[in-house]
């Protein structure tokens, strides 16, 4: 049970420091109020001015991102961004990180991460149609990591499965840097009728503020603050109660909210989910956004536990709750609607004109602060930035050591980051809603839009190793790879969401990484005309002073205008011709093979040309629209050899290929490349259109994987290679 210090005790004992407010910030609060803040008020400011809610360290960097465009209906600032896809429909998406909760309690941490991002999507009026994830764990050589992986997957799966939202794709990498600070990011995509678009704003004096969903308990109190301070083993005992997810309650809540939005939009003024810093952030933001004040009677808030004080009620992060603003006089309708879904709807306050944020508890005014001070006046910091010592300017290129090409190839197939991920994604229901056209047979997942000829392509990508070696180029590559994945499936990239998982902004080297990575991402977004429409920042990802690799997850959605353009990566027919688009160089620093052979990555990252990348992508789009290619696969980790193998495994067809490249270069990770296959009938037309961008490699067919390189031969039985690739991860997870 918490004891409330008096305002002077807070000042004298410096409680605010413990809660993450600096001396200056505490002073600013006093200036805003014209007095000392009381216990509850100090708590409200600490939560609202935390990095998690205010983005005080990342805001200046996020300004670099392009956020507007013809197709953009809603950029950052709401629950999720919205992109027009024609015919009165729009796609809504956002990603969220839940790294710290996942480290503490992987099952519930991951599950509630999914629950949170789903609420963001339906709060916009959209029906969630797909989930994706992006996971980075330590190496699979210790029992704890295996447990983390297993429980994280279970948590993601169980939540999405129960909600009836297919989890259609994601990515998973393994590196010791994530050992005690795993990265768990989830992305949700929704489909919206443009007329149903909602905002999280509470306008109109006298309108009712409604609390709907689960009761409030002491879960995750200080969660927002917790997510914004460093993680070290000593703090173990300080951790506040873990949040438990209830996907069943959320399903009911979602159906109720969607019914309210679709059928009673006349009485709904605004809707927002209660995420980080629960009730305070949702309510204060809704009021401030609309330019009004708000009063809340805490005695009416549904409670799961006895004796909760205002601080706890306001900061609790109990899950499966939403906040609504309802037109005065329509209270009954709302209550009745939610009752039908066994979900609670309680009026807890109303909109006021005075722009104050006022809380009442047991008939006392327990907090009274200017709403804009709380929401919009958090200080913004530009931190000192310093290039990390490990970033090398030496052009030195590392070369793989290859004694037996076939052995090296088989070994790399078994690397957990390369190996088949079915041991993970088969634990997710990827088919529910019966719209999933492709998951693992294409570079991006493809989900049709029922009743139209269109489909959406979606992908999550990050390549933290590249970012570690060069955050700016790595940031460009992260966005480019996402776009490449969309394009390879026949889509046109629309926009991105992101999760910026970085170390402490107060560490100049980590701040440099954040600054440079966002710069690179912004440049790539401008190139591909894919504005950033939503996102999430997760800083302080470090354990015992060791930051994780800079890990900006990019979630991209593209539109496939015509179902006929859907292109998958599997070889289609024996005798089809295989080409690689794009030139291959000696690009090994930061590559999978460097990690495999040297156990760590080092050196200067290779060059990358955004304009060339864009041209390559445009070429692929043209080839798809002209129906000149039958499969397309982007080349990523593991390079050409792995790309060919993946297309082969997905089809059960072997190949025979001859190339001027050396055996080592088969694993080079030069960007901007695709493997495509062509029907022999279309060879001339294809070569004419592709010009010198395409290099002929060989043909599809047989039951062998065969690559004759300039200095060596790779030859292996398809079944054997496939078994190595398919079994490796499952085996290592045991």
């Amino acid at each position: 049970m918490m004891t409330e210090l008096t305002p002077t005790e807070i000042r004298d004992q410096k409680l605010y420091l413990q809660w993450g407010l600096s001396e200056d910030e505490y002073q600013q609060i006093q200036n805003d109020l014209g007095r000392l803040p009381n216990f509850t008020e100090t708590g409200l400011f600490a939560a609202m001015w935390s990095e998690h809610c205010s983005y005080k360290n990342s805001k200046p960097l996020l300004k670099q991102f392009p956020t507007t465009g013809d197709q953009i209906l809603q950029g950052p600032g709401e629950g999720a961004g919205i992109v027009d896809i024609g015919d009165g429909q729009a796609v809504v998406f956002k990603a969220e990180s839940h790294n710290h909760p996942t480290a503490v309690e992987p099952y519930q941490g991951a599950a509630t991460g999914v629950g949170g991002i789903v609420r963001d999507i339906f709060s916009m009026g959209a029906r969630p149609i797909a989930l994706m994830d992006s996971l980075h764990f330590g190496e699979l050589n210790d029992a704890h990591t295996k447990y983390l992986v297993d429980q994280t997957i279970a948590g993601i799966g169980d939540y999405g499965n129960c909600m009836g939202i297919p989890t259609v794709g994601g990515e998973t990498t393994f590196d010791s840097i994530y050992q005690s600070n795993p990265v768990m990011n989830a992305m949700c995509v929704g489909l919206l009728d443009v007329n149903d678009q909602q905002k999280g704003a509470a306008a109109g004096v006298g309108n009712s503020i409604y609390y709907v969903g689960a009761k409030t308990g002491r879960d995750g109190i200080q969660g927002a603050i917790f997510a914004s301070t460093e993680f070290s083993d000593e703090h173990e005992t300080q951790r506040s109660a873990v949040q438990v997810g209830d996907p069943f309650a959320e399903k009911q809540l979602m159906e109720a909210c969607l019914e309210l939005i679709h059928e009673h939009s006349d009485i709904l003024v605004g809707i927002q989910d209660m995420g980080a810093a629960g009730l305070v952030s949702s309510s204060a933001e809704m009021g401030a956004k609309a330019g009004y004040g708000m009063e809340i009677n805490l005695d009416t808030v549904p409670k799961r536990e006895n004796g909760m004080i205002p601080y706890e009620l306001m900061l609790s992060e109990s899950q499966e709750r939403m906040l609504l603003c309802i037109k005065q006089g329509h209270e009954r309708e709302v209550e009745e609607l939610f009752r039908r879904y066994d979900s609670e709807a309680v009026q807890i306050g109303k909109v006021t004109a005075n722009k104050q944020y006022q809380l009442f508890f047991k008939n006392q005014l327990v907090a009274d602060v200017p709403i804009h001070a709380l929401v919009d006046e958090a200080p913004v910091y530009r931190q000192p930035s310093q290039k990390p010592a490990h970033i090398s300017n030496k052009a030195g290129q590392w070369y793989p050591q290859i004694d037996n090409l076939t052995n090296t190839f088989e070994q790399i197939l078994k690397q957990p980051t390369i190996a088949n991920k079915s041991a993970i994604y088969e634990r997710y229901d990827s088919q529910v809603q019966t719209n999933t056209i492709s998951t693992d047979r294409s570079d991006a997942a493809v989900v049709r839009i029922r009743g139209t000829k269109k489909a959406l392509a979606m992908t999550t990508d990050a390549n933290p190793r590249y970012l570690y070696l060069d955050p700016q180029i790595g940031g460009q590559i992260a966005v480019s790879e996402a776009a490449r994945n969309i394009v390879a499936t026949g889509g046109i990239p629309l926009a991105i969401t992101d999760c910026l998982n970085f170390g402490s902004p107060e560490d100049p080297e980590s701040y440099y990484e954040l600054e440079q990575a966002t710069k690179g991402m912004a440049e790539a977004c401008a190139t591909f005309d894919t504005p950033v429409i939503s996102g999430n920042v997760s800083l302080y990802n470090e354990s015992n002073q060791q930051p994780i690799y800079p890990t900006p997850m990019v979630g991209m959605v593209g539109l496939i205008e015509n179902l006929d353009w859907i292109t998958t990566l599997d070889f289609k027919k024996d005798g089809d011709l295989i080409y690689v688009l794009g030139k291959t160089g000696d690009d090994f620093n930061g590559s999978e093979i460097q990690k495999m052979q040297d156990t760590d990555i080092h050196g200067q990252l290779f060059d990358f040309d955004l304009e060339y990348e864009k041209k390559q992508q445009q070429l692929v789009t043209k080839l798809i629209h002209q129906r000149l290619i039958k499969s397309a696969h982007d080349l990523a980790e593991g390079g050409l050899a792995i790309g060919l193998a993946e297309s082969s495994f997905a089809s059960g067809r072997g190949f025979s290929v001859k190339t001027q490249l050396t055996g080592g270069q088969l694993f080079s990770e030069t960007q901007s490349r695709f493997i495509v296959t062509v029907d022999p009938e279309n060879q001339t037309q294809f070569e004419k259109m592709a010009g010198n961008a395409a290099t002929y490699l060989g043909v599809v067919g047989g039951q062998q994987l065969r690559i004759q390189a300039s200095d060596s031969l790779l030859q292996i039985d398809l079944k054997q290679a496939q078994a190595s690739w398919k079994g490796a991860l499952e085996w290592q997870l045991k």
Partner: protein
Amino acid sequence: MKYSIIRFPGSNCDWDMFYTLQDVMNVTPVFVDYREEELPENTAAVFIPGGFSYGDYLRSGAIARFSPIMEAVKRFADSGRPVVGICNGFQVLTEAGLLPGALRRNDSLNFICKPQKLTVENSQTRFTSRFNLNQTVMFPIAHGEGNYYCDEDTLKKLESNQQILFRYQGNPNGSTDDIAGITNERGNVLGMMPHPERASDALLGGADGKLLFQSLIESVAQNI
């Protein structure tokens, strides 16, 4: 004639079943809320769709069976008319005692979602007349508790009465005797873990499931 789809709180394959019946099979589906006490008049068949009724808390299907509509479903089944439970629907039907046995957690302890090959074990029923005996079909599975269990006596009965309609090829979940789908003794109640409604559109990877719906719809037509 209407095809009634029962909706419990937490059902989530309800729309998939609806679209399959309406858009692929061209019959008339209707949703029936779990709080109803009667099925709509003219109900030709009842479908209990997949999902997580009541969150699958306690055991999947355990709580749903106490819903008011289940009395009506029982009466409907007792009158010999067709009832089909898919996935969570199968679990509800076993919990309700309309089908023998029970569904345990998968032996891997993990949820599994993947395309699954099945063997048609009996093609002489109202649900399978369109299939050939021993035909291999592909239906997706997606479940965490699909590990069918029954005691030996029950198993013998299932076999001698030819109540086993589908068996897995390569048992994915530990089910007794590879059982994927069974009927009751009378042959009018079907429960199966694999999802025929997810296998009814070639765009999504296969259309073997249509044969099951066709069989049933034809049998309904013949009985009028």
